[in-house]
């Protein structure tokens, strides 16, 4: 297939309304356990919105203004909510064996989102401008330096600011977006078949 046709075809599915705003779901994908992923994504939305307001006002704002202080409180509790719902979502999908039926990439992207979210949050902790930021900057540098990541300099507030407000959230947001698209395209993993259904399917396959 011509690669431009391939890209067009993929984009058509990726950006379709059916992918992002479906009108029907499998009946097994119901209940509170199936809102954990959405709650994680919603926490990310609140993180981005509160982050945009904070970034627009500059890094001093949230340390000296009462409104800024309130906003950073929202940002703080949003990241707590983000990881809280993400870990519950991770547990739900793990115990569901969510990689079955050709959904391995969906699982990998989800775990990758967790991995990328950790330094994204960490750079944010370095932006608090308090003792916690100082301490974690000096503590983390040794491990980063030892692993060859000295380019990532937690003592350089300018670099950490840029990474935290633009680079990391854009990467994380893209991973989350493709993860969600894969969930929709592949469908939410169906339950394990019962013993009886399994026997029937195997019987059909033999014949």
């Amino acid at each position, binding site marked *: 297939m011509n690669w431009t046709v391939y890209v067009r075809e993929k984009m058509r599915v990726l950006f379709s309304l059916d992918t992002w705003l479906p009108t029907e779901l499998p009946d097994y994908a119901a209940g509170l356990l199936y809102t954990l992923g959405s709650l994680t994504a919603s926490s990310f939305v609140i993180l981005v919105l509160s982050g945009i307001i904070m970034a627009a006002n500059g890094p001093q704002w949230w340390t000296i203004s009462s409104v800024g202080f309130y906003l950073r409180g929202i940002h703080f509790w949003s990241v707590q909510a983000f990881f809280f719902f993400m870990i519950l979502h991770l547990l739900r999908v793990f115990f569901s*064996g969510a*990689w079955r039926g050709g959904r391995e990439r969906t699982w990998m992207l989800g775990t990758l989102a967790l991995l990328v979210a950790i330094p994204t949050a960490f750079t944010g902790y370095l932006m608090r401008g308090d003792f916690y930021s100082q301490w974690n900057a000096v503590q983390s540098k040794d491990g980063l330096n030892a692993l060859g990541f*000295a380019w990532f300099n937690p003592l350089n507030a300018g670099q950490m600011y840029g990474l935290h407000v633009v680079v990391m959230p854009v990467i994380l947001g893209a991973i989350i977006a493709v993860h969600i698209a894969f969930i929709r395209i592949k469908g939410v993993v169906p339950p394990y078949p019962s013993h009886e259904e399994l026997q029937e399917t195997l019987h059909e396959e033999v014949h």
Partner: protein
Amino acid sequence: MRHYHPRIDVTHRYRYVPADFVKHLLSTTLVVAALTALLSGLFHEPVRPALKIDAYATQHPKGFLTVALGDLNGTGAIANYGPPYNHGTGSVQDIIQQWVGVIHPVYPKQAFVLEPLAYAAHLDPTLTPALNQFTHASPAQQALWERAFGTALDHARVQGSHVLLPGGAYGPVGTMMQGLLHLGQSGLMTGALDRSPADYQFDNQNALLFLQGHPLHSAAKKLELEGNQWGIIHEERAPYPGPWWMTIVTAIYQLPFIANASAADALALGAGMVVFLVLMFAPWIPGINRLPRLLGVHRLIWRNYYATHQADSSDGPSVPS
């Protein structure tokens, strides 16, 4: 053992039911917005004021001079750190660190002592002769003065924010160190340390490296924030939640054979990465990829589904295309 198979791995007996995703996503976003707005209003965010050089120099003048002397005579942790800051060997954990090289150059004798003192000499001209005498002396002579100052500092008395040094053959180093203490107490030292060639300040590396040894460690220890105190995931103000999502790496740090290793940081972060890779590649790892089926938690997750569908096989497969 059977291989995974899309046909036999998943059930084919289910129906599609109407769903309103606009309402669903709006609801979850509003729930999180309301929750975080409420929590911020009630509890805000924990803040513990930063450790400032002027406060430290005023409250711990002898500690300040000890740090500064380590920077001057090259025995300090950063003076002897190694890449990416300089060519020391004290904190080099592995070959990768050396391979990256000196990409954030910091030479504390110059950057933490002599250059800040050169700024201070503009405000206090009595420092200039001492600085000139020191910089024009041989390295051997400088070392003799530094050693004598170290001995005097061991026997010094602290009176308020002053350090009263006994006499000794420390030459100009006494004047220089007292001048640096005054600079530290004035509040101007952070600026002198972090002054960039471009004049705009975006980088606070040197001020943090100046404080990173005893000043920050002693403050952190009291707050149980050190690495061997599960410090990574501790919030500085309990009971606020800290970054608990780093629990696995923090737990690895508590293992004695890692905590006591010379390359503790590299080992702990490396081991954390291995744990993550196991999670990421779980679908392909024999045993782990079948674990959810064996554990049976899915029967609780799909309790209602199993109760309605699989009990009554007359439902039959009903998968829309």
